[in-house]
């Protein structure tokens, strides 16, 4: 059963929410933290709903609305959300209130809005989706699991149009913990220098992305999601590289067939080494794009990669801002491979493609 991406909504540290200009005007950040550029929420959310929603819930609902409008769908058949660390701002608010006020007079909304499935529930409520609804959470593969679940649902014919997405925020609480663990750069850099400095550590980012995954294509289809493979803590480079070869072979492809590789390198010279090696060994001739200088590193950053890969296929264009290794100017982009890693422990491959003449109605 095919899986078509018929729409997307991306809210990121770049102006991506209107799906119009494709990464032309790049925002720069100079404190090792990238935070989202926000749409006007009132364009997407009723004022009466807006009053009690946290920033992240507003972003999630807005991204979901943008996505559904793009896809021309009012009510999806299922909603699947994913997050690495959930609603950290609300959790921090509830936790600090609890600790500072000796567990008295606590704000119920903070608690409620910090539950991981609050967004999936809110979306279902807003669009009256009574179907399958679930949330995957945790630092490893939450978004990838959401996509795999959605693809299975389509194969089971339990749903025709699924809204699947992810959210994660650049939380100060997490920043301090990650800094102590050596995940972030010791030196303060601009995001635009991320791949120049060649030092350990990365920079913190955030983002919310929703996609409609459908069993049927349409003239406005962005691309096809062909497959996903995740590798948890590979023991060595060989395990990773063999997993990639097997993954491509299962889809009848060799590395030479890939037109563009979306490289999920994070600017961490140590943790990026296997991604770097993969690109050199397996894809010496493919165009390469990188993206974490635009969105930062976060647990569900694969969703930014998916948005980027899908946009490249739909627009048949690669923005200068992401080019690491250029493509032959006349070559059509038909197949995109995403190679992402999170903190050097969670590796994911996603395969996307698009017919040469686009998609038509079935």
């Amino acid at each position: 059963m095919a899986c078509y991406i018929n729409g997307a909504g991306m809210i990121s540290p770049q102006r991506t929410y209107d799906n119009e200009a494709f990464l032309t005007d790049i925002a720069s950040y100079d404190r090792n933290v990238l935070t989202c550029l926000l749409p006007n929420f009132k364009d997407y959310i009723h004022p009466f709903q807006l009053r009690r929603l946290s920033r992240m819930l507003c972003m999630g609902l807005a991204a979901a609305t943008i996505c559904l409008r793009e896809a021309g769908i009012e009510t999806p058949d299922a909603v699947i959300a994913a997050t690495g660390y959930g609603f950290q701002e609300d959790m921090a608010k509830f936790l600090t209130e609890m600790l500072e006020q000796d567990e008295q007079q606590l704000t119920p909304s903070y608690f409620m809005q910090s539950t991981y499935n609050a967004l999936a529930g809110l979306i279902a409520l807003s669009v009256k989706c009574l179907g399958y609804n679930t949330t995957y959470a945790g630092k490893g593969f939450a978004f990838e699991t959401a996509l795999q679940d959605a693809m299975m649902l389509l194969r089971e014919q339990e749903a025709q149009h699924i809204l699947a997405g992810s959210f994660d925020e650049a939380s100060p609480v997490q920043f301090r913990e990650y800094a102590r663990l050596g995940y972030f750069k010791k030196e303060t850099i601009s995001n635009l220098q991320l791949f120049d400095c060649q030092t350990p550590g990365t920079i913190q980012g955030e983002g919310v992305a929703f996609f409609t995954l459908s069993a049927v294509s349409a003239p406005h289809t962005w691309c096809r999601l062909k497959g996903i493979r995740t590798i948890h803590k590979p023991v060595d480079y060989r395990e990773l590289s063999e997993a990639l070869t097997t993954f491509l072979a299962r889809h009848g492809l060799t590395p030479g067939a890939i037109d563009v590789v979306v490289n999920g390198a994070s600017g961490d010279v140590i943790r990026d080494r296997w991604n770097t090696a993969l690109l050199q060994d397996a894809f010496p001739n493919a165009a390469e794009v990188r993206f974490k200088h635009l969105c930062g590193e976060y647990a569900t950053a694969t969703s930014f990669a998916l948005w980027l890969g899908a946009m490249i296929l739909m627009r048949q264009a690669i923005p200068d801002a992401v080019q690491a290794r250029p493509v032959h100017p006349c070559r059509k982009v038909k197949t995109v491979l995403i190679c992402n890693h999170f903190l050097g422990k969670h590796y994911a491959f996603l395969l996307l493609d698009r017919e040469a003449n686009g998609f038509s109605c079935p």
Partner: protein
Amino acid sequence: MSRRVFITGYGVITAIGNNAEENCTSLIHRRCGFGKLDFLETVHRDRLFACEVKLSDDALCRLAGVSIGAGYTRTTLLGLVAAKEAIAAAGLSDADVQHAGLISATTAGGIRELERHFYDLQDPGKKGAFVAYLDTADPGEHTERLAEYFHIKKCLGTVSNACSSAANAIILGERLVAHGEIDCVICGGAEALSKVTINGFNALMILDREHCKPFDENRNGLNLGEGAAYIVLESEGSFQRSGRRAIAELAGYANVNEAFHQTASSPQGTGALEAMKRTLAKAGMDTADIDYINAHGTATENNDLSEGLAIQRLFGDRTPPFSSTKPYTGHTTSAAGSVEAAFCLMAFQQGCLFPNINFQQPMKELDIQPLTEVTHPVRLRNILSNSFGFGGSAASLLFAKC
């Protein structure tokens, strides 16, 4: 063509027992785990009781077979204990486990440890044993620790869908096996009590200071609990190959959303009704085929009305015996779906039904009443288990005895 999926083993740890046998004995002897908190420090200790696992973190480390001070959260420890038991009960070899998948559920995760060490963890100048808990609060942490312990690398997932989480984990596991993605998957959930959870539910005013009374006219809210449970799901070929047997088949399931309110269920029970109907349809069964319902039955005013009406509407005069086992274990939130699945499997093995403790006065809105006595022996063919949660989630599982 999808494969049939069977359950070959389970493991459980709750306030009423550290393993399946102890839990079963407590269920039969009506021994509940509700009481004062011994291990969680909260200002509400003298007023808000809960169902705590009767082991300290250190004792859990010893039971789980891991070092103390290595950053294992209590949620992870509970998970390890239950998963080990499930694997042993299913008769899986080390090689079998390494080829299996793991889908686990939690909401609290390592929040208990985060709240205890919050300021220290945030202060780069502070040093101490607490640093072992850096980056352990998220739900995925416990799944990763379990995966590392058992050398599981495939099909790893963490569900966090409020109180239907573990049921959703089981549903995902079922689908993975049914569609041939994997032959064996360990599914369930783990949840430790925390101050955040207790205070959060308290702020929502849905906790009962007394021992909870599901489906009773005078019910006053839920009791919180903690625990973990896992069931081993396998394809027919997988367990038959090694001459092992199954306890039951996971014959039906459903995951729906009520889209009514962020925390409340609809008074008419639309979501609950839909979940049970779809589960029966998936199993190709009728209401007459169900011999017992393990209800979600949290004893909140809202859930029991909603669920009670849904059961009554669906089954009518033919409502089978039903009970909530939450007076025994408390509401184990994200682990509830798998804890109660384990109790359903126990019911099959013992030929026994477990009662709805504390029921005295029927709800005025309902014609049906829950089971109040341990009932044995009883012939059981098929059992339905419900799990409903915040955010409108409603899940049901249908187990068919082998």
